[in-house]
């Protein structure tokens, strides 16, 4: 670790694994322009459509007749279609865009073999489209977050293989002496996804495992899609942008390395607690409980690294939209991990299992944490690769405040409503009629829909802004260095 003493992008690197001169940031950014725009634009479009589907889903929960006459738009299809769009359309496209850019920058290399990425983008997005279409016409699987039909998965797999090869080669031929925390997380994500996706497709779709083994595989997949695909990309962004914008190095590389390895080991065992009480052996549930508790160890270390850097710098939240979004995400990451450990306890799980509480917890993870971090990253990346400025500070503010308040409202509504729902379901003496329990969740579901409208507003602002910046004129080179400040030398004490 002793060589990890330099801040990302500092110009003290001497040539890295290849011995070649590192490229300048400007050259790297410009070379990443097309892939960043392609993945960014696809993610923004998917996010908008996904939000519309999320709203339809949410409305149907309290107004079952809403768009109810068409089989294509029945609840059981719109809901998985929404999740598929969100996870594979928005989250993964955005994750790709952010991951490549960070990878290229930290490797101090311009885009090589760009055609690999463009081919991958085409396969991936056609794959997602086929998946959604398949779900809407009824070819869906009942496995959480893997509802896509079997014929869509190979397209995604091809796309992913291309991307992983590209990333490994970029890292291998890096022109920098060092490897950085963000790169470790990106590599982990790029290996974990194909592993879990391949195994889950095999054991759930192509050659279904026997009986409830499917449920174990399904939980393992869904949990790790969050914990070892989305989260590492989010962490790569947090580890990159928070120090970068504050002009302060990562607090401790030594602790960062410990956190990295313990996170991979512990988090990949957390998740099966969702099967508590169900028809699987007790050890499977216990491993999920223990895994979620142990995950708190790396989470605390990661949290210290992020939050200690922030101490005394909260004023910067006002001036940097990237920091505002990414730090919102970092706080959500810490808190959702604590919440996950809390709901793993048997006594809590007895109440919240199968209720809306779990939807609240899930959105705190995939939205308040991951999505907000990706927004922040895109606000940083797009102007640099395009050499243009964001046209409107007002739209950014609108985006932040609608999404921040929307997601907080949603999570509060689902967690409170879900808690009440759980207590009432478990208490047949006081609530003998199930339909009364259903009725008592209505106000919370309506609040959830209101939150969805706020999010739609924010996503519309973001989409408009995203396409607007593409139309702007480039800024002259002289002003670039003034607009896009990059910290230069930043040494840290080597632990």
């Amino acid at each position, binding site marked *: 670790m002793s*060589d*990890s003493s330099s801040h990302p992008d500092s110009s003290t690197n001497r040539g890295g*694994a290849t011995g070649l001169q590192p490229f300048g940031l400007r050259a790297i950014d410009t070379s990443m322009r097309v892939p960043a725009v392609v993945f960014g634009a696809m993610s923004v479009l998917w996010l908008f459509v996904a939000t519309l589907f999320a709203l339809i889903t949410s409305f*149907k*929960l*309290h107004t*079952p*007749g809403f768009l*109810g*006459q*068409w*089989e294509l738009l*029945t*609840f*059981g*299809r719109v*809901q998985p279609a929404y999740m598929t769009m969100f996870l594979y359309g928005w989250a993964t496209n955005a994750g790709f865009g952010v991951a490549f850019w960070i990878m290229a920058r930290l490797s101090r290399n311009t885009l090589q073999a760009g055609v690999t990425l463009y081919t991958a983008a085409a396969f991936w997005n056609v794959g997602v489209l086929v998946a959604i279409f398949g779900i809407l016409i*009824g*070819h*869906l*699987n*009942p496995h959480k977050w893997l509802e896509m039909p079997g014929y869509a998965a190979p397209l995604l797999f091809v796309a992913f293989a291309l991307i992983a090869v590209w990333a*490994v080669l970029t*890292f291998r031929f890096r022109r920098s002496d*060092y490897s950085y925390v963000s790169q470790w997380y990106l*590599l*982990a994500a790029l*290996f974990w996804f194909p592993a879990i996706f391949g195994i889950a497709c095999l*054991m759930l779709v192509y050659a279904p495992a*026997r*009986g*409830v*083994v*499917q*449920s*174990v595989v399904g939980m393992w997949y869904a949990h790790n899609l969050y914990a070892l695909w989305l989260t590492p990309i989010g962490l790569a962004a947090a580890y990159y942008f928070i120090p970068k914008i504050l002009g302060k190095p990562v607090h401790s590389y030594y602790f960062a390395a410990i956190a990295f*390895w313990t996170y*991979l*080991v512990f988090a*990949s*065992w957390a998740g*099966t607690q969702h*099967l508590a*009480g*169900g*028809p699987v*052996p007790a050890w499977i549930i216990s491993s999920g409980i223990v895994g979620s508790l142990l995950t708190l160890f790396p989470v605390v270390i990661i949290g210290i690294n992020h939050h200690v850097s922030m101490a005394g710098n909260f004023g910067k939240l006002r001036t940097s939209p990237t920091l505002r979004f990414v730090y919102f995400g970092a706080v959500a990451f810490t808190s959702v991990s604590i919440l996950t450990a809390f709901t793993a306890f048997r*006594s809590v799980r*007895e109440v919240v299992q*199968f209720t809306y509480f*779990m939807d609240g917890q899930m959105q705190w993870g995939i939205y308040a944490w991951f999505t907000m971090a990706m927004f922040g990253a895109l606000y940083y990346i797009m102007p640099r690769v395009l050499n243009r400025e964001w046209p409107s500070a007002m739209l950014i503010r609108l985006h932040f405040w609608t999404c921040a308040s929307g997601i907080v409202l949603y999570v509060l509504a689902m967690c409170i409503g879900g808690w009440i729902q*759980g*207590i009432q*379901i478990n*208490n*047949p*003496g006081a609530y003998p009629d*199930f*339909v*009364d329990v259903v009725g008592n969740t209505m106000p919370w579901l309506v609040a959830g829909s209101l939150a969805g409208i706020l999010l739609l507003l924010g996503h519309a602002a973001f989409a408009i802004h995203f396409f607007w910046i593409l139309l702007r004129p480039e800024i002259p080179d002289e002003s670039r260095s003034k607009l896009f400040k990059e910290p230069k030398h930043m040494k840290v004490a080597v632990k």
Partner: protein
Amino acid sequence: MNKLSVIITGILVTIAFSWAGLVLTSHVQLGALEHHVDELSGDSFPPPRAGIARRGKKTYQELGCVACHTQQVRRPRDEETWRLPYGYAGDIERGWGERQSVARDYIRDEVVLLGTRRVGPDLMTVGGREDTREWHHRHLYDPRINTPGSTMPSYSFLYKTRAVDDDPSPRALDLPEGFGAPAGYEVLPTPRADALVQYLLSLRMDYELPEVPAENE
């Protein structure tokens, strides 16, 4: 941590560890479960599903009923260790089953529908609770007929409305005032609706398995 090979090897080890520990081990433990043969009668449990019910299960999957319904009766509360007025006991007290469901109950299902959300009640034993075709057809056509205040969506697209000619069909739904078709028309289930209802009726756990503790009964 500067070597690509070290990082990648480490990452692959974590993947292998998690996969072998959770997925492979449960596959080894549960993947070979066989049905239970009753020594006296020679019957095997869980019983196989009839062909039409299997087609109905397909419809259940296609319509995404799993988004709102679980199919699992959870372990009852342990009175000794857990005293608050709630717990998994709710499942059995609500009449969603007489015993908890166990791994063997699912071995006949090519696709397992445990589910993760209970917007509606658990359906593991719904065929025993509501045991008539008519009830299920009415409920699927419009859930608010049987259960005022229900938020389950209507599946009326599984039914066709046609003009009654000289001989009304005996299979027409018997719908109450305000829900039915206009005068001179009748509502008939499509084959998919029939199959789905047969599947719902087949959802029962009216057999015993040796591994389920007797005190759950």
